[in-house]
C-alpha cells in the first residue's frame, strides 16, 4: 500500500521584511486517497498587484479544490489518464483558473478597493488595471498517484522530481516560444491557455518538489539546485526533525541569497523512499564528487 506524505513551507523575503511588505508566497500539500498534491504560488511584486498575497493563497486553494474534485472518481480518472492525459490536464487547468476567479470575485465583492490602495495610482492608471490583476500570482502544482506524476505551471517557479532511479530531474520542459512563459499569470485573461504541463506515466515517484523562483535563484547552478533536492530526499525519513532544518535553510537562502520570498512544497512516497534510501544516499555522494569534478574542470585555464 502506497503511503504518501509531504511538507510545505514559505518564508518571507528579507527585502520584504525591510519594506514592511507581507509574504506574497503561498504553499500547501495534500495527501488524498492514493494521490498527493504539492502546490506553491508567488504573488507578483509590482505595484498594480497590491493584493497578490491573497492571489497566491487563492491559487493554492483553487488548485487543491480542483484536484480533489477530479479525484472524486479516482479510478475513472486513472483509467483515462494514459490515453487522454492532455485533455484531462487541460480541464484541470481550466478548473483551477475558474476556481481562482471565483475566489477573487468573491473577495473583491466583500472587500472593495480602499482609498489607501487607490492612492498609489493616478485615476487613469487605476482605471486601466483589470481587477483580477490586483491578485496576480504564479502557480506550480504537482500531482502524483500510484505510478504516474503530472504537473501544471503558470509563470516562473520550478519542479524537481526524483523517480525510482534516484536521480533528480526537472520534468517540466519550457518552450520559450510558447505563450506559457515566465511572465504568465493566473490573472491573465487567457490564463487557462497559458499553462505549461508535464505527464510522466509508468514511473514510480520517490519525491516531487515545487518551488517558487526565489529558491532557484539562490543557487549558483542548476546542478546545485538538483543536488539540494537529492539531499532533502535523503533526510525525509526523519521528516519531523528535518522540518526545522529546511525552514532554517530556506530562511538563510532568502536572507543571504535572493532576499525574495521562498516557498517549497514536497510530496513523497514513504514506502518507496524507505526501499530506496541506500540508493538516494549513494546519489548524494555521487553528486558531491561530481560537483568537485566540475569545479576542477571550471578552473582549468584554456589560454
Amino acid at each position: 500500500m502506497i503511503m504518501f506524505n509531504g511538507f510545505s513551507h514559505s518564508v518571507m523575503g528579507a527585502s520584504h521584511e525591510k519594506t514592511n511588505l507581507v509574504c506574497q508566497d503561498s504553499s500547501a500539500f495534500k495527501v488524498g486517497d492514493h494521490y498527493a498534491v504539492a502546490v506553491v504560488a508567488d504573488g507578483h511584486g509590482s505595484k498594480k498587484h497590491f493584493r497578490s498575497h491573497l492571489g497566491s493563497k487563492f491559487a493554492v486553494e483553487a488548485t487543491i479544490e480542483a484536484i480533489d474534485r477530479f479525484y472524486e472518481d479516482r479510478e475513472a480518472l486513472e483509467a483515462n489518464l494514459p490515453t487522454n492525459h492532455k485533455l484531462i490536464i487541460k480541464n484541470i487547468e481550466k478548473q483551477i483558473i475558474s476556481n481562482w476567479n471565483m475566489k477573487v470575485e468573491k473577495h473583491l465583492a466583500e472587500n472593495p478597493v480602499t482609498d489607501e490602495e487607490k492612492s498609489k495610482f493616478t485615476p487613469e492608471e487605476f482605471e486601466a488595471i483589470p481587477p483580477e490583476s490586483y491578485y496576480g500570482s504564479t502557480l506550480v502544482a504537482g500531482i502524483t498517484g500510484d505510478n504516474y506524476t503530472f504537473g501544471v505551471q503558470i509563470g516562473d517557479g520550478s519542479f524537481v522530481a526524483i523517480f525510482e532511479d534516484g536521480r533528480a530531474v526537472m520534468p517540466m520542459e519550457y518552450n520559450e516560444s510558447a505563450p506559457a512563459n515566465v511572465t504568465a499569470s493566473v490573472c491573465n485573461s487567457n490564463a487557462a491557455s497559458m499553462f505549461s504541463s508535464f505527464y510522466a506515466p509508468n514511473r514510480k515517484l520517490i519525491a516531487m518538489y515545487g518551488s517558487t523562483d526565489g529558491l532557484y535563484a539562490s543557487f549558483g547552478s542548476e546542478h546545485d539546485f538538483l543536488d539540494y533536492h537529492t539531499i532533502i530526499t535523503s533526510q525525509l525519513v526523519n521528516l519531523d526533525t528535518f522540518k526545522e532544518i529546511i525552514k532554517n535553510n530556506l530562511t538563510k537562502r532568502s536572507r543571504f541569497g535572493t532576499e525574495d520570498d521562498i516557498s517549497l512544497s514536497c510530496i513523497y512516497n514513504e514506502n518507496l523512499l524507505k526501499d530506496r534510501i541506500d540508493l538516494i544516499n549513494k546519489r548524494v555522494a555521487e553528486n558531491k564528487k561530481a560537483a568537485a569534478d566540475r569545479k576542477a574542470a571550471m578552473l582549468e585555464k584554456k589560454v
Partner: protein
Amino acid sequence: MSNEHVTEPEVNETQNVSPLDDFDTAETVSTAPVSDDSILDFDDDPLSATSVSKKSLVIFFLIDTSGSMKGKKMGELNTVMEELIPEIRRVGEADTEVKVAVLTFSTEVRWMYSTPIPIEDFEWARLRASGVTSMGAAFKELNHRMSRNSFLSSPSLSFAPVIFLMTDGYPSDDYKEGLRELQTNSWYKFGLKAALGIGQEANDNILAEFTGSKDTVVHAYSGGQLAQMIKIIAVASSQIGSKSMTLSDDTNHELGEEDVFAAKQKLLGQQIQELVSTQTDGDDVPFDTGW
C-alpha cells in the same frame, strides 16, 4: 473509500489574511525575525553542502591579443589585470557575487576559461600577442555565449552583464557583421558597455559603435594610462552594474528594464569621464614612440 491518509494542507498564512474555514492553518510562514545565530549554526545541517549563492553579475572582458599588442602594451595589460582582480573582489555591494569571463581575440577567438569564474577563484593567465584582429568573430562568439543556455545560465544571475572591450587597432575582419548580430542580443542591449582604445591606431568611432556612446570610450597612450583606464572602467562598471536600482522613480512610476539600463549606462559614462579628467599623464612613455 479510505480517508485514513488524508492530511489537511498546511496553508501559508500571511499577516493580513484571516484563516479559511476549509483548511487547517498551521503556521508555516516564518515572519518573525530569526536570530542570525540560529541561521548560521549549520554544524548539523546536511543542506549546507549546497551553498547559498548571492545575486550575481558577470563581467566580460574582450581583449585584443593581435600582433600589434606585442611588447609594452601586452606586458602592461597583463600586469594591470593581475592587480585588478583583487580590486574587483572588493567592489560592488556586499551581497553580489561577481564572475569574470575573458575572451581574447587575434586570428582566433579564445576564452580564458570555459565558463565565467567567480572572482574569488579567478586567476589571470598571462596573455601573449600574435596574429590579426578578428573583432567581428569576437562579437559573434560573445553573442553566442551571452545566453541562458551558455555563460549566463546561473540561476542567481540578477544583473545585466558588464562588457569591457580593449583593442589597439582596426578590426581585420567584418566587425560590422559581428556587431549587428551582437546588437540583437538582449543581454548585450541591456548590458553596461565600455571600451578602451590602446595607442594611436585604435579607432574611437568603432569603439563608440560598440558601447553606444562616446562617453563610455576612453583612450590610453601609455603604459601608465593603460593601467589607470583599465582600473577606472573595470571598477566603475562593476560597482554600477551590481547596484540594485529602486523600482520606481520620484513620481512612483515603476522603472522598467530599459529605464534601469539607461540610468546605469548614463551613470557609467559620467563616472568614467569624471575620473578620466582627474588623471595625470606623468612622465610615462607613450606606446607609439620608439625606444
